[in-house]
């Protein structure tokens, strides 16, 4: 079988783990040929890649959508060509997925919620935080930020106040710069909540450079990357959220194969988020 | 075949066989797409002599010199320097073998100082290997003193007038102390004073035993400075003579293959009403209180030394750099000329002095270059250009001006300088102006074409066009003008009628 895969972005650490998960899993299957393309965060490129796959006559397509609101068009293209389609990691915006189209992934609403609830618990429901946001035109950034705000709106976390939120475009050095700028502006947050681990690590570096202990300022990220877990081991990062990239990857390939063989599968295959704290971190050490 | 490196070694060692000729070129051929620029051309340059090169525009003079200076490589032909066969692969090779050239088109770096321009690649260094700016300045001043040039070495070249840039080019070429010095129309931007000054420099170099190739279209210069003269026509070598053995007419005949009877065919035409009237026009710091009238059918010559502000006055008249105060009226109506577009609407046309900077669209073809100005208000309907019509007009203009080109779709870049100038004249003639301002209209134009352009100007005047002609060539001003306005340092110093005007009187007013 030939499966065409269109990834939203190659340069993203998490998506790289996901991609590798798919490729590693594909190697265990005889006669399976994966063709992975990089959409470079461009909806139009992604659409074109799907159309190229269709012209190629692949047996199934796996899409990690750039823009979850643009998926109806992709669904339509694949359905019209009669080729099975599996969305992975980012939940498609379709009202309903037709037959031969599925989604494999985690519910993004959970990631920010798990993260913020833990932060709230550690802070005891009160304190001041700053938020490091991802790239603003990116859905995960908006969703995770929204989750944080939603948690703060609940009764048990009402005492928490957001001092400022700015975008670090997912990047470590921009995270460092932002936090340094905040510190120099006299902000004294109790916690820095970041939309991903990279910016969280940047925040830790900024704190250290400014002589502030990570014991006094809680830093939280999402993704449980290698660097993040190392930081957690060192006691600098206190909260992160594990999203099982490998499981999503292999799940997506499995689902695609089943669809290609004509089997029916559930339209939503969930792989849950898991909260990672210093207590349970060992079990995630070699995963992402 | 001796490599340039060996040559250099030999030369520095002083072990040069003392052959009679510095330079011998044999059977050179060079073709550009569609044009054979040089065909089996030979040329020899003697030590301690000035060898003039004459020929119509596009005859191939510059091309041959560029080959000698290592800019172009010839398709075939042999090349001897001081009796030794040699091959030049780059301008650097030529320079290191003692060949320096003043190019027809100025080749200076506008944002760098005069001193930096002259000594580029040869900057004096201090003990730490850094460029020594003080020494750079001193060396330049020394050079300028020797050549009797007065230009601030630390001013940016971009701020100099064309004439001064030309002087910088001359100084730069001299500074190489090379045996062979090629001058491609060095005086086209100079007035008599600087020309005389340049001749002094040339005589000194000649006395040092150097060989000078001198290209010009000005006959009088030829007889003043040249020892020998070679003539080219259509890429072919016609002949070489001692300057003393030939007459003006001989040379013209060799150049164009026919007689040219009258150089300044000024017709006497009835002078009409005042068309353009200028009162107290001032651009602060540049020119002051300029007042004059031009009548229909009249040719007003503008004379003055380099930098006297003639070009600035013309630019102000045409709205390129408008004056700060004063009044311009056309046909009795006061007009506020703020842009060239307004000037054109009032029937004006302006041929600028700097072909390259303000004239040619180098990368466009001849046709586009010629039609650009007229499209403002002719040959266009609903935005579309009536291409066939314009092309016909341009073709006629090409014939009238005898522009040498295989076809009008050639890039103007590939034309010889004189032919470029003709295209630009054509551009303005197409607009059928009532007031024509010409700034150095025959710069770089050969005798034959010059006569034609003069006839054309005359003809326009007789059709009732008011002409203002700036020229640094005395005979031209004297021959063509009905009246001459002389300027000095941004002020009008006097008017001379055709009858009373003479070179001496103009110089008196111009130098004050």
């Amino acid at each position, binding site marked *: 079988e030939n499966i065409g895969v269109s990834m939203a972005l190659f340069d993203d650490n998490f998506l790289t783990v996901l991609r590798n998960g798919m490729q590693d899993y594909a190697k265990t299957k005889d006669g399976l040929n994966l063709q992975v393309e990089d959409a470079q965060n461009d909806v139009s490129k992604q659409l074109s890649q799907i159309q190229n796959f269709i012209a190629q006559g692949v047996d199934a397509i796996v899409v990690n959508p750039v*823009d979850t609101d643009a998926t109806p068009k992709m669904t339509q293209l694949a359905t019209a060509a009669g080729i099975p389609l599996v969305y992975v990691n980012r939940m498609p915006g379709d009202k309903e997925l037709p037959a031969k189209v599925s989604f494999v992934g985690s519910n993004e609403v959970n990631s920010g919620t798990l993260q913020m609830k833990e932060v709230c618990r550690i802070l005891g429901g009160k304190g001041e935080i700053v938020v490091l946001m991802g790239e603003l035109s990116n859905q995960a950034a908006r969703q995770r930020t929204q989750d944080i705000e939603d948690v703060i709106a609940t009764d048990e976390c009402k005492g928490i106040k957001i001092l400022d939120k700015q975008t670090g475009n997912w990047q470590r050095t921009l995270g460092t710069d932002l936090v340094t700028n905040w510190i120099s502006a006299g902000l004294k947050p109790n916690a820095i909540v970041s939309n991903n681990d990279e910016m969280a690590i940047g925040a830790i570096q900024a704190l250290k450079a400014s002589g502030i202990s990570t014991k006094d300022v809680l830093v939280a990220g999402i993704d449980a990357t290698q660097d993040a877990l190392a930081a957690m081991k060192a006691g600098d990062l206190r909260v992160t959220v594990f999203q099982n990239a490998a499981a999503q990857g292999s799940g997506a390939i499995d689902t695609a194969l089943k669809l290609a063989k004509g089997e029916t599968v559930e339209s939503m295959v969930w792989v849950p988020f898991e909260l990672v704290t210093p207590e349970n971190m060992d079990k995630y050490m070699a995963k992402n | 075949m001796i490599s340039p490196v060996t040559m250099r070694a030999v030369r520095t060692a002083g072990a040069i066989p003392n052959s009679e000729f510095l330079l011998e070129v044999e059977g050179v051929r060079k073709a550009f797409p569609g044009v054979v620029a040089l065909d089996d051309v030979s040329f020899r340059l003697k030590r301690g002599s000035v060898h003039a090169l004459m020929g119509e525009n596009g005859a191939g003079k510059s091309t041959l010199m560029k080959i000698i200076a290592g800019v172009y490589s010839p398709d075939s032909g042999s090349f001897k320097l001081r009796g030794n066969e040699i091959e030049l692969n780059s301008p650097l090779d030529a320079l290191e073998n003692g060949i320096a050239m003043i190019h027809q088109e100025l080749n200076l770096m506008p944002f760098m100082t005069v001193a930096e321009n002259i000594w580029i690649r040869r900057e004096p260094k201090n003990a730490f290997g850094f460029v020594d700016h003080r020494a750079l300045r001193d060396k330049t001043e020394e050079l300028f003193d020797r050549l009797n040039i007065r230009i601030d070495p630390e001013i940016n070249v971009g701020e100099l007038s064309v004439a001064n840039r030309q002087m910088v080019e001359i100084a730069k070429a001299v500074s190489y102390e090379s045996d062979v010095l090629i001058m491609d129309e060095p005086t086209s931007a100079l007035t008599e004073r600087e020309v005389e000054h340049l001749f002094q420099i040339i005589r000194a170099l000649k006395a040092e035993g150097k060989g000078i190739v001198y290209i010009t279209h000005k006959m009088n210069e030829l007889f003043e400075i040249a020892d020998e003269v070679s003539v080219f026509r259509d890429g072919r070598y016609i002949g070489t003579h001692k300057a003393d053995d030939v007459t003006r007419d001989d040379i013209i005949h060799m150049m164009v293959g026919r007689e040219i009877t009258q150089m300044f065919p000024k017709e006497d035409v009835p002078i009409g009403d005042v068309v353009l009237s200028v009162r107290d026009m001032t651009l602060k710091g540049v020119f002051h209180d300029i007042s004059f009238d031009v009548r229909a059918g009249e040719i007003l010559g503008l004379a003055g030394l380099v930098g006297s502000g003639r070009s600035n006055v013309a630019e102000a008249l045409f709205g390129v750099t408008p004056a700060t105060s004063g009044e311009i009226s056309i046909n009795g109506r006061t007009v506020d000329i703020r842009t060239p577009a307004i000037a054109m609407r009032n029937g004006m046309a302006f041929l600028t002095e700097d072909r390259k900077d303000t004239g040619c669209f180098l990368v*466009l073809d001849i046709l586009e270059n010629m039609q650009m100005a007229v499209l403002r208000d002719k040959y266009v309907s609903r935005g579309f250009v009536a291409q066939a019509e314009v092309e016909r007009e341009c073709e006629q203009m090409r014939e009238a001006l005898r522009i040498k080109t295989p076809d009008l779709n050639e890039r103007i870049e590939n034309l010889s300088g004189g032919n470029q100038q003709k295209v630009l004249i054509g551009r303005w003639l197409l607009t059928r102006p009532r007031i024509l301002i010409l700034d150095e209209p025959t710069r770089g134009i050969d005798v034959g074409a010059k006569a034609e352009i003069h006839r054309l100007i005359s003809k326009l005047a007789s059709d009732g066009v008011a002409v203002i002609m700036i020229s640094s060539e005395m005979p031209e001003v004297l021959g063509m003008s009905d009246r001459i306005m002389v300027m000095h340092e941004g002020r009008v110093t006097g008017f001379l009628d055709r009858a009373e005007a003479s070179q001496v009187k103009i110089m008196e007013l111009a130098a004050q």
Partner: protein
Amino acid sequence: MEQVTQPAQRLERPQRRRKLPSEVNIFLVLIGIALIFEILGWIVTGQSFLFNRQRLLVMILQVSVIGIISVGVTQVIITGGIDLSSGSVVGLTAMIAASLAQTSDFARAVYPALTDMPVLVPILAGLAAGTVAGLINGSLIAYTGIPPFIATLGMMVAARGVAKWYTRGQPVSMLSDNYATIGSGIWPVVIFLVVALIFHIALRYTRYGKFTYAIGANMQAARVSGINVGRHLIKVYAIAGLLSGLAGVVLSARAISGQAGMGVAYELDAIAAAVIGGTSLSGGVGRITGTVIGTIILGVMTSGFTFLRIDAYYQEIVKGIIIVAAVVADQYRQRKRRKA
């Protein structure tokens, strides 16, 4: 004194050269690239690359948005300028157009009162927004005299900001079927080619075109020739903006969604297409036909990579090499012909 006896020679040499338009070169490069893929295709996959209608369509389809921008950018480059803002303007106009093309059965519409509008409304809104951006670029360049690079860089940053601010980063979806039609099937290709044809004619046969070339060839000379350079530049940049707006409309219709991140780095592809097609960044030289070919080269490359299943890691490396090689080959052929 030897006497020259022969009569004055004809100044004009008789042979009139047949000049091929310079696009022929880059067209040959395109054919070359396509043939290489065809041959490799038979070797590697045993399939034909070119004889596949669907693929031929996708090849152009996937670059038609770039192509539309590129037509505008070509004109800007011919004037000697540059437009870095096109990608961001695509993003902005995609948002604006999409926000006016939503259906009423969608609860989160940007303008709940303005749903189910006739399809012309979002289209015109997108075009207008693009034109305004272009007008701002042009006016800045004409009246303040700042370099086009800076004016359009400022617009690039600011327009992206406005696009994100417009719906606070939310994508705009649930667009009407009528609107989606513009971006479906062969439509984007048709729009691209029609736009290209219009401006091919405009550049070659109208005064607008002549003045555009003149300004790029020598701005100073253009001014002295009576061209109102400022006003003309504003026109050219406005048209470039308009076309970016059109690109934004087509893109959002194609994706049936408007997203603030749309069009990132499109300006580079558009400029690349123009330059590959022979437009000179120093101004005065360039043709729409060349740009179209340049655009198609980019498209053929993308499809060819997928077709040959070239590993995504190598694709970019190969793409970079092909861009350079295409221009080198073009230059080489041009030089050789000139020598001949």
